[in-house]
């Protein structure tokens, strides 16, 4: 209690710095993965992607990000265990932020495929086990989180497969592909708008004091979906007129029709990423703030101040502008194998899966879902060549990241404890 009262401003300041550092890491690396498929399919320039990311990451974090933040800040550790020594939670969360941020930075430099989500979860578990005790961790919850890491890429892959398969059946393999594309494109856009907004409305708008019934939500989501479809139809119709007139290369025309639609999926993806991954950086900060604000009381219910989410958003945009820019350029050049149709399917499927997962408050890995979705598209014969060795890399990154984040966090935890007490 005394420690917190004594060092409150200092702790808060350190927390803010670490939070921005962690979010910088997310922006520098993870956002590029989220939008990589959009940039890679050539429909989006890097500049547009960054603007889209800045706006929709922020919107996703503030509108639909609350659930995952809750899990990160109080779902992994049982707060009752540290009620008598609240400063431990503050030190631990600081340590977790620093550890995850450091691990992300190291991994980015070394080129290891790690996930921000896995880093932060590993870090929190690490400090809790080392600093508080093995019982402090809600192992049941951890089990669910780990299970979601397996289920979510599979789900993303499944959705991507079905989308790609339907596009091939309805459009590519129809007698007049470009006309079918113009006909069905708005339906796909409706689907994007509908699902994303439905999930957002269902869970996200609660803390904005907007409460809708199930039917109202569905109607509102349908309206958003319809709006998206309408805007999309306008964008597509310009391309279509040219494409339908020139039936020589019908499949190329289909790709040209799908290209402007990628912008919408990129928005959806940035939104989804914001709703899930911003929580990784912001969750621990919220926990720190909660303890300090209440003067050392570990409250189960503390309001999530908006400025913390904004802090996360700023950190991400900063990371994107300073480093993620380059990563995205590399991805954009490298993924030439992705056509607009397959890029569309992969991104939509990944976005849907991430938003669905954040509804259940599970911190999933956007990167791994994106990988799963791309594989799904590939299995539907939408991509020329897939390197299946990536699955091995992902499993390896799990095995390495969880203990690495944990050990780092434990070390930082004892360091902070030593400094402040």
């Amino acid at each position: 209690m005394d420690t917190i009262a004594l060092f409150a401003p200092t702790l808060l300041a350190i927390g803010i710095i670490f939070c921005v550092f962690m979010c910088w890491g997310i922006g520098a690396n993870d956002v590029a993965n989220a939008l990589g498929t959009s940039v890679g399919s050539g429909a989006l320039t890097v500049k547009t992607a960054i603007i889209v990311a800045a706006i929709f990451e922020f919107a996703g974090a503030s509108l639909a990000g609350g659930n995952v933040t809750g899990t990160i800040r109080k779902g992994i550790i049982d707060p009752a265990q540290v009620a008598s020594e609240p400063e431990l939670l503050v030190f631990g969360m600081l340590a977790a932020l620093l550890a995850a941020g450091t691990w992300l930075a190291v991994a980015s430099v070394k080129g290891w495929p790690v996930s921000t989500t896995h880093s932060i979860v590993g870090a929190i578990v690490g400090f809790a086990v080392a600093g508080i005790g093995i019982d402090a961790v809600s192992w049941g919850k951890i089990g669910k989180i780990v299970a979601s890491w397996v289920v979510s890429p599979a789900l993303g892959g499944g959705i991507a497969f079905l989308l790609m398969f339907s596009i091939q059946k309805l459009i590519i393999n129809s007698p007049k592909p470009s006309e079918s594309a113009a006909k069905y494109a708005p339906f796909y856009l409706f689907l994007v708008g509908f699902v994303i907004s439905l999930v957002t409305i269902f869970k996200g708008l609660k803390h904005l004091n907007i409460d809708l019934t199930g039917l109202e939500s569905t109607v509102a989501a349908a309206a958003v979906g319809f709006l998206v479809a309408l805007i999309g139809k306008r964008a597509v119709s310009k391309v279509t007129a040219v494409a339908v007139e020139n039936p020589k290369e019908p499949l190329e025309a289909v790709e040209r029709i799908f290209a402007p639609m990628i912008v919408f999926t990129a928005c959806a993806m940035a939104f989804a990423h914001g709703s899930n991954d911003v929580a990784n950086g912001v969750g621990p900060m919220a926990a720190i703030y909660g303890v300090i604000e209440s003067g050392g009381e570990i409250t189960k219910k503390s309001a999530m101040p908006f400025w913390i989410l904004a802090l996360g958003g700023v950190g991400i945009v900063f990371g994107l502008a300073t480093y993620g820019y380059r990563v995205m350029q590399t991805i954009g050049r490298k993924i030439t194998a992705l056509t607009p149709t397959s890029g569309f399917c992969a991104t939509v499927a990944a976005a849907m899966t991430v938003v669905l997962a954040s509804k259940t408050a599970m911190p999933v890995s956007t990167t791994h879902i994106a990988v799963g979705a791309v594989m799904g598209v590939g299995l539907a014969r939408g991509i020329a060549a897939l390197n299946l060795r990536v699955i091995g890399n992902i499993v390896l990154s799990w095995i390495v990241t969880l203990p690495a984040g944990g050990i780092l966090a434990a070390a930082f935890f004892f360091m902070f404890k030593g400094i402040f007490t």
Partner: protein
Amino acid sequence: MPFQNPLMQLFGQSPFKPMQEHFRIVLECANQVPPLLEAAQLGDQAGIKKSRDEIFRLESDADDIKNEVRSHLPRTIFLPVDRREVLMILDLQDSIADTAQDIAGMMIVRDMRLPEKMHQDIMALTNRCVDACNQLGKIMEEMDELVGAGFRGPESDKVMYMIDELNKIETDTDVHAVNLMKTLFSNEEQLGAVSTVMWDRVIHWIGDLANFAERAGNRHRLLLAR
């Protein structure tokens, strides 16, 4: 900075574009065979050498691409079609260039002039065999569209039809070859035993240009088979 991320690692290098590139070179190589034989009939040493050098250069270029494709196609690469079929088609494409090289090699080391009356027949056979290669070239140019369509649908029907066409051309070359062989053996006194044997060999090689093209086409059929 070594930057790898899981998304980028996920995309293997597609073999289809380089395979098209490979066959474009092979095709150029095969299309050098008619001028080569023409020069050989005229005894135009400079012309033979020019065509021979061109064929050897193209064959070596094609080899480089072939090795490149193979080295990017480990077992962990997942393709929309059977990896073995892809490698087999690549092999057959390469055999066409190799055969052109064999023919060029023979023309340069030995005086391969034929009696006047055989000129027309030998050129007709050669041109028809190169036609078969060109037909395979058209099929290969559809490859990227086929990948986009998932090797199904109307695009696949179109290619199936092109393969049928290739089969017809190959049958045609067989007729030409049989006729030419008859003429060859009826002139064996005039040609001499060694020349006859050598021409028997060269005619087989020329026919092989079409045979390899047809076999590659039939492998394409397997890619499209449902």
